[in-house]
């Protein structure tokens, strides 16, 4: 007896707990109307309720005549929240009333003033394809000229040619006179229309028509960069192709001369040579330069039978470094003393790597430490530790922020371009040395440009001549990045 009663009570409780809460009184939350963009005699009315539409309701929409009489314009079923009403031209607004009926009883009503847009205010409205881009973008420009009225918002409407309806694509706040429409289809002509919203008023622009976006094949803003790059690359290629058997002059680089001395010293002392090819991966050209120099250093250590230790912070650098060192040992006929552990992986973590290399330095006390590659904050920690163990140190990097640290803590430092020249210097390969001459042409071009630019700007400033100012501005633009 007790069990069925208990089940019944429990069932009732579950039933109670699962019932949705009873809805509150039905309310019209919003009721808004304005003329449809581009059609001043068609009013669009929209509304929302505070709850989902009950199936039992219906809507009645009235427009007030100029005399103030409500005129029923539509009777609408539930779940309708939008209506378009054709009106006569020549009005600033129309007054509407929305009623919600349930059976024969009026549940709720609301009135609104639906504004009619008027043409005016916008001047110089134009649209164009964004130049030098990958397409799918159109930019619009306009100015506002209506004294005493300042729009709070400008809405941008777009339609594809051949379609009647305007679609809202975006809006900008007051003061803005430009809009970038992103996501157009290339080659499709679009029309645009603007609407300015001021308190109690809507103004509309004349549409601009037939604007298409398209992708460019060349970013013409970079044409100066392309010309300069081609000139420098052309110079480098020219000298490489002209390289012959005749030995070309290359100035002495003390840091590279010191590498052989450092390896010799390590041999005499019976201590290893530590080589750090930077902490970046193979996608950094400094790492590649470091690995190229590693080949020359490995040849020396193989010839002198000196222990070489290359801890690396990237797996790919390890695998590449092994190939380079193996090739070097083979080339001098000492594959017998090569083993894979010469180049060994430590960790990708910057300071973990520094801790490991510092540990190697303190324990092994290398006679020579060579740091050639890309370095960051670890540069000084490595170089100072090397200094503290009395190693002869040669560093080289193209990171300008790390150069002062290496200069302060190392015996020799390859500054920037010297790192890239090192492989040519060490290998004495004529093609590689010839490429340095090509670089010198680039330097000569930079020198001429700096001197000419300085003279032009100074002359323009001193003389106040308009011609010289135009000339100097044009000259400066040749070397400016305009994108």
């Amino acid at each position, binding site marked *: 007896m007790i069990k069925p009663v208990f089940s019944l009570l429990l069932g009732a409780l579950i039933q109670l707990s699962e019932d949705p809460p009873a809805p509150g009184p039905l309310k019209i939350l919003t009721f808004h109307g304005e003329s449809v963009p581009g059609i001043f005699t068609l009013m669009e009315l929209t509304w929302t309720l505070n709850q989902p539409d009950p199936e039992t309701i219906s809507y009645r929409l009235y427009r007030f005549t100029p005399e103030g009489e409500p005129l029923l314009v539509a009777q609408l079923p539930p779940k309708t929240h939008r209506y378009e009403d054709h009106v006569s031209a020549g009005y600033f607004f129309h007054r509407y009333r929305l009623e919600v009926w349930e059976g024969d009883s009026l549940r709720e009503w609301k009135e609104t003033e639906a504004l009619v847009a008027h043409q005016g205010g916008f001047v110089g409205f134009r649209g164009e394809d964004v130049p030098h881009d990958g*397409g799918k973008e159109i930019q619009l420009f306009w100015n506002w000229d209506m004294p005493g009225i300042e729009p709070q918002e400008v809405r941008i409407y777009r339609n594809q040619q051949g379609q009647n309806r305007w679609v809202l694509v975006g809006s900008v706040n007051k003061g803005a006179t430009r809009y970038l429409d992103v996501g157009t289809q290339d080659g499709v002509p679009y029309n645009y229309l603007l609407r300015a919203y001021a308190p109690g008023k809507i103004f509309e622009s004349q549409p601009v028509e037939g604007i298409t976006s398209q992708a460019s094949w060349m970013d013409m803003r970079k044409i100066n960069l392309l010309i300069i790059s081609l000139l420098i690359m052309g110079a480098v290629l020219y000298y490489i192709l002209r390289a012959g058997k005749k030995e070309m002059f290359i100035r002495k680089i003390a840091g590279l001369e010191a590498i052989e001395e450092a390896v010799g010293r390590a041999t005499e002392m019976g201590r290893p040579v530590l080589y750090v090819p930077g902490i970046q991966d193979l996608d950094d050209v400094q790492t590649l330069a470091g690995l190229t120099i590693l080949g020359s250093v490995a040849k020396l250590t193989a010839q002198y039978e000196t222990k070489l230790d290359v801890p690396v912070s990237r797996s*790919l650098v390890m695998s590449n470094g092994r190939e380079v060192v193996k090739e070097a040992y083979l080339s001098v006929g000492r594959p017998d003393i090569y083993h894979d552990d010469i180049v060994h992986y430590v960790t990708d973590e910057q300071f973990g790597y520094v801790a490991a290399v510092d540990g190697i330095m303190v324990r092994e006390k290398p006679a020579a430490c060579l740091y050639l590659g890309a370095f960051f904050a670890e540069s000084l920690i490595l170089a100072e530790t090397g200094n503290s163990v009395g190693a002869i140190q040669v560093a080289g990097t193209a990171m300008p922020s790390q150069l002062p640290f290496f200069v302060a803590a190392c015996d020799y430092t390859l500054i*920037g371009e010297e790192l890239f020249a090192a492989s040519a210097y060490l290998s004495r390969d004529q093609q590689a040395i010839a490429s340095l001459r090509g670089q010198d042409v680039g330097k000569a071009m930079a020198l001429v440009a700096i001197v000419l630019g300085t003279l032009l700007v100074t002359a323009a400033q001193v003389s106040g001549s308009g011609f010289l100012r135009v000339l100097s501005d044009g000259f400066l633009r040749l070397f400016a990045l305009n994108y």
Partner: protein
Amino acid sequence: MRREIPLIITFIIGVMLIAALFIPRKPFPDLDSEFSRWFDIIAVFAFVLGGGNLLQVHIDRITRGHKDRWYSLVTVVSFLFTLIVGMLKVGGDPGIKGNYIAEGTWFKVIYDAVFTPLTASMFSLLAFFVASASYRAFRAKTREATILLIAAFIILVGRTPLGYYLTYWLPEPLQFLHIPNLSAWILSTPNLAGQRAIMIGIALGIISTSLKLILGIERSYLGREK
């Protein structure tokens, strides 16, 4: 073919990436990031190689009784423990979608309580090394070192309130000698000029080296010929 295929790939990718800088039409603008992603994928596989090498080197040291075998033991134990804890997501959701570094996982604890303090300790060593390196660099033994010392002194003092109070009283025509102004001038004129000269050299060096790599003139980084 061992060398030819990498050289062909380097040439094609190099030329495409140079072209991508000047061509805004798709797919060129995305090539740089796309190839970087491919590189990252390859690097992830190579990480197995690196981890394997780390274990091989240190286990070899332990088994051979190398003098540094105890350091190697710490390395191997730490590496394996962290790897296992991370892969099994110990302390967290072990499912395939579980985050190995979510709050409460052992990996997160190791990261926060061991790795981060150790990294910070290594980084903070820099402060002491800056002091010792500056001491050596600024010893006025030569004319260049003396100029460096004076410039460094002006910049150091110019960046502190002392620099302002020492020379704020200078009359307007002599304001260029006001230490903060001198400090700013050193940084923005001679220092910047030197840096730009270095940057021009570096840029030309990178262009030349890249060109040699793309054209296959510089190939020693590839290792063996045969």
